């Protein structure tokens, strides 16, 4: 099914950041990322800021999509939680609502149990928040509010390539 455009206002973005910054602390994580299923990075927090988070987002979405495909072959709707164990760092990915993925990177300072526990609460909060954002977007459109991009001219677009 086609998904509507995601529009995130400053206050919503701050709320997302608030939740994932708290998750970094509560789960003793190195980094937390929120990625949408199409591979766009929505937000990041923790000491891993500065890594190639764009690639991380794209590969996360690819990984989740591929595993989702496997789930369907087996008659499952999804595999909502993924865990990858490395020598030093571990990766925990959880589906949040129907279009977001919560990614946590952690090392020996934390544990899978703690991460799972903290993700459960933060994931629930994020799912609710993204549902609010979706509804807000729909109301915005229904009320006839136009986006700033309505005023983009052909010249603006051409200037990008000049």
């Amino acid at each position, binding site marked *: 099914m*086609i998904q509507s455009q995601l529009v995130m206002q400053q206050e919503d973005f701050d709320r997302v950041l608030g939740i994932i910054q708290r998750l970094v602390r509560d789960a003793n994580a190195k980094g937390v990322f929120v990625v949408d299923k199409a591979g766009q990075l929505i937000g990041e927090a923790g000491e891993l800021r500065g890594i190639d988070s764009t*690639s991380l987002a794209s590969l996360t979405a*690819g990984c989740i999509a591929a595993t989702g495909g496997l789930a369907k072959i087996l008659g499952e709707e999804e595999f909502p939680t993924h865990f990858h164990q490395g020598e030093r760092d571990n990766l925990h990915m959880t589906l949040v609502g129907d279009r977001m993925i919560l990614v946590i990177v952690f090392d020996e300072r934390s544990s899978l149990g703690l991460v799972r526990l903290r993700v459960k609460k933060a994931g629930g909060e994020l799912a609710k928040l993204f549902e609010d954002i979706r509804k807000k977007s729909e109301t915005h459109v229904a009320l006839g509010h136009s986006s700033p*991009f309505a005023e*983009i001219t052909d010249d603006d677009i051409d200037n990008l390539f000049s």
Partner: protein
Amino acid sequence: MSFINYSSREINCKIVYYGPGLCGKTTNLQHIYQKTNPDVKGKMISLATETERTLFFDFLPLALGEIRGFKTRFHLYTVPGQVFYDASRKLILKGVDGVVFVADSQIERMEANIESLDNLKVNLKEQGYDLRKIPYVVQYNKRDVPNAAPLAELRRLLNPGGAPEFEACATTGQGVFETLKAVAKGVLTDLKKMGS
């Protein structure tokens, strides 16, 4: 599905290069990667087999500049062209904002082109998209080969709807940026329509 972030003032869009196996989708991205400034591109990722065939996708993030104070970021993806990777192709089309169909001009690849285009239509439809309604550009690649089909024939079979089309030779770069510009323009024009 484009993502507009008012906090970081960014627009993020996803463009997918589709087409039959060995038509030059990855070569398009490689050329773009080689010829763009380091400060506007991210790392190119290729999930390929040992024989350099695309296994899942190639990915190249590009920042094209600002429009009305918003940074425009385009994420370019290719799909694996080989017929048996259809499940992967469907996944990569999720959330797409614009599509480039890369056709192989060689006469003997005409069937493969037609099959791939039909496959694109089916896979888009499964996700609720209609090829006639999304930003879409056709690229006739490998125009330099001696056995290239006439342009009129390619157009008749692969682009009866008259989408923007470009002749290309991705190995030398001819037509690569023209194709990218056309699809990016289509995506931004779409965004403008959605906003008005």
